[in-house]
C-alpha cells in the first residue's frame, strides 16, 4: 500500500508540470493581460504602463516567464498577487477558511439528507415517499445553481430571518465568542442549503440505486434465509455495501474542498476562494490563477488517490499490494 501511494504521489509531478504548462500557455495566449484595466483608464500615461509591464515581466517571451514562474513555485513561492500586492499564499489563506467551512457544511448537509432519504426511498420502493423524493431530486438537479442562490437571497430579504449574504454580521467583532460562532453558523445556513441541495439530490439517487442493487443481491437473500431481521438486513448488510461507492466519493469531495463555488459565492456574497479566483482569472492576475490551478489540480489528484484508498478500505476485495 505504501509503495502504491508513493508511486501515485510521484506521478503527480509530471502531471502538475503538464497542467501548469497548459494553463500558463492558455493564460498567455488569451488577449490582453493584467494591465488591461489600467490601459482603459484615460489618465494613465503610456510610459507608466510600459514600466509596469517590465516590472511584472510581461514583456518577456512566455517560456521565460514560465521558467521563472516554475523556478519560484518549485521553491514553494507562489509569487505575489499583482492586484493585491501581497504573497499569493497569504491571499489564498485569507479566504480558505470560509470556503473550507462552506464546503464542509454543504458536504455534511448533503450526506445527512441524501443517505437516509436514499435508504428509505429504496426500502419503500415505489411508495409515495419514494416518488416524492425522486421528484424532489429531479427538481433539485434541474434548477441552475445560480438561480437557486438568487431565490435564496430574495427569500432571505423578504423573510428577514436569514442574512442576505456575507460571512458574518457587521457587529460580529462586538459579539461574545458564542455569539460570534452562532453568527458564522447563521450566515452559513442558506449558502449551505443552496450548495448542498444539488449534491444531496445526486447522492440520494446514487444511494437509492445502490441500495436497490444490493437488495437484489444474493447475499441479502442469504441473510434473509438465515432469519436476520429485516431492519438488520437493511442497515447492516445492505447499507454497508451500498454506501461503499459513496464513501469513495468522499475522496472526490476532498478535491472540491478548496475550489470554492464561484456561482453561489458571487450571488450570495460569500467571500470565499471561488470569488477570489474567478476575479483573478478575469483580471489575469497570473500568479493567483496559477496557484489556484496548482492547488486545485493537486487536490483533485490527491482526492482521486484518497478515493482509491477509501475504496480499498471499505471493500475488502480491493487491494493495491501488487
Amino acid at each position, binding site marked *: 500500500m505504501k509503495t502504491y501511494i508513493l508511486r501515485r504521489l510521484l506521478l503527480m509531478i509530471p502531471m502538475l508540470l503538464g497542467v501548469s504548462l497548459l494553463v500558463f500557455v492558455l493564460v498567455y495566449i488569451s488577449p490582453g493581460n493584467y494591465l488591461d484595466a489600467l490601459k482603459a483608464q484615460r489618465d494613465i500615461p503610456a510610459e507608466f504602463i510600459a514600466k509596469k509591464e517590465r516590472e511584472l515581466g510581461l514583456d518577456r517571451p512566455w517560456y521565460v516567464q514560465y521558467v521563472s514562474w516554475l523556478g519560484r513555485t518549485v521553491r514553494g513561492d507562489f509569487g505575489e498577487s499583482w492586484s493585491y500586492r501581497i504573497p499569493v499564499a497569504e491571499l489564498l489563506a485569507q479566504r480558505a477558511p470560509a470556503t473550507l467551512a462552506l464546503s464542509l457544511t454543504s458536504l455534511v448537509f448533503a450526506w445527512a439528507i441524501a443517505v437516509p432519504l436514499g435508504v428509505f426511498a429504496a426500502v419503500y420502493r415505489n411508495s409515495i415517499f419514494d416518488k416524492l423524493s425522486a421528484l424532489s431530486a429531479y427538481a433539485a438537479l434541474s434548477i441552475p445553481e445560480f438561480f437557486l442562490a438568487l431565490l435564496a437571497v430574495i427569500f432571505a430579504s423578504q423573510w428577514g430571518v436569514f442574512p442576505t449574504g456575507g460571512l458574518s454580521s457587521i457587529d460580529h467583532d462586538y459579539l461574545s465568542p458564542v455569539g460570534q460562532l452562532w453568527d458564522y453558523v447563521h450566515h452559513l445556513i442558506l449558502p449551505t442549503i443552496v450548495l448542498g441541495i444539488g449534491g444531496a439530490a445526486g447522492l440520494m439517487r446514487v444511494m437509492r440505486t445502490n441500495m436497490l442493487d444490493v437488495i437484489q443481491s444474493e447475499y441479502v*437473500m*442469504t441473510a434473509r434465509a*438465515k*432469519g436476520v431481521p429485516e431492519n438488520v438486513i437493511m442497515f447492516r448488510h445492505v447499507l454497508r455495501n451500498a454506501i461503499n461507492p459513496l464513501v469513495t466519493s468522499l475522496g472526490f469531495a476532498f478535491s472540491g474542498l478548496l475550489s470554492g463555488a464561484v456561482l453561489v459565492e458571487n450571488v450570495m456574497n460569500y467571500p470565499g476562494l471561488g470569488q477570489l479566483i474567478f476575479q483573478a482569472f478575469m483580471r489575469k492576475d497570473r500568479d493567483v490563477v496559477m496557484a489556484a490551478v496548482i492547488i486545485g489540480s493537486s487536490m483533485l489528484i490527491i482526492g482521486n488517490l484518497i478515493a482509491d484508498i477509501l475504496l480499498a478500505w*471499505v471493500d475488502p476485495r480491493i487491494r493495491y499490494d501488487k
Partner: protein
Amino acid sequence: MTSVSGPLLKVNNLQVDFGSGDTVTHAVNDISFQIRDGETVAIVGESGSGKSVTALSLTRLLPTPPAHYVGGEILFNGRNTLALSENDLRKVRGKQIAYIFQEPGTSLNPVFTIEYQIAEAIQLHRPDVTDVRAEAIRALDLVGIRNPAQRLGDYPHQLSGGMQQRVMIAMALACQPKLLVADEPTTALDVTIQKQIMDLLRDIKVKTGMSIMLITHNFGIIADIADRVVVMFRGKIVEDGPTGEVLRHPKHPYTRALIDCVPKLGAKQRRLRAIDHAEIEASA
C-alpha cells in the same frame, strides 16, 4: 419426535404467480409433495421449471411483489408457513429451514468476515451459546475446512469457490436446522469440487440425520444422495417417486429427456440431445 404426527414438510396445492394483470405467469402451479424427517428429496427440473421458486417459497423468501402466493399451504412441522407472521417466519428461517445457494461467491456478503457471517446466524437462533466463536469453528470443522480458526478472519473473496460453498454449508448447519434446502449447490463449481461438495452433503446427512431438499437440474448428481426425486416441468410436478425407481423407469417423457442429458461415463460420446418442449408437451 415430530415424525409421529406426519411428514416434516408437506406442500399442498401450492400456487405462486409472478406479475399481475395480463403479464401474470404461474411460476408454481398447484404442486404437492412432502419430505419426511431424515429424508433427502431431490427436486429436478431445468431452469424456469419452478423448482427454485418452490424452495424459496418454503419460508416466503420471494419478494412480493412481483411474487404472489396465490394458493395452497406449506406445512412445516404442521404449521403453515404461508400464514405465519414475519416474526414467526424469521424463527423458522435459518433455525428450522436453512438454505445454501448456487453461487457461493455472491451469496456471501463481501464486506463481512466469515466469522461475522456464521456468528450472526448462531447469535440469532441459539441465544444460549456463549462461545460463539468456538461454535463457528466447530461448524467450519464440520464442513471439512482445515485450520478453521485461521479462516475465521478471512473475507469471502479470499476463499476458493469450493471453500466458499463449504462456508455456506457451515453457516447453514450452525443453527442445526431440521431441513437443509440446497438450491443448485454445485452448479457454479468445478466438476471436481462438485463431487467434494456432494460428498460433504452426504456425509452431513449421515452425521446429522437432517432432511435435505436438493434442488438441481442435473440427474447425474442425485443418484447417490437422494431418497426420492420430484421432477418439475413448467411449474408442475410431473413425476414423484423413489430415486432408483424414477431413474430406472422414468414415466414422463420430460424425465426421460432430463436423464438422457446426463453423459454416462464410458458410454460412447454422442451428441447431447436438446430437450424439445413441443415434443414433450405433445407426448405428455
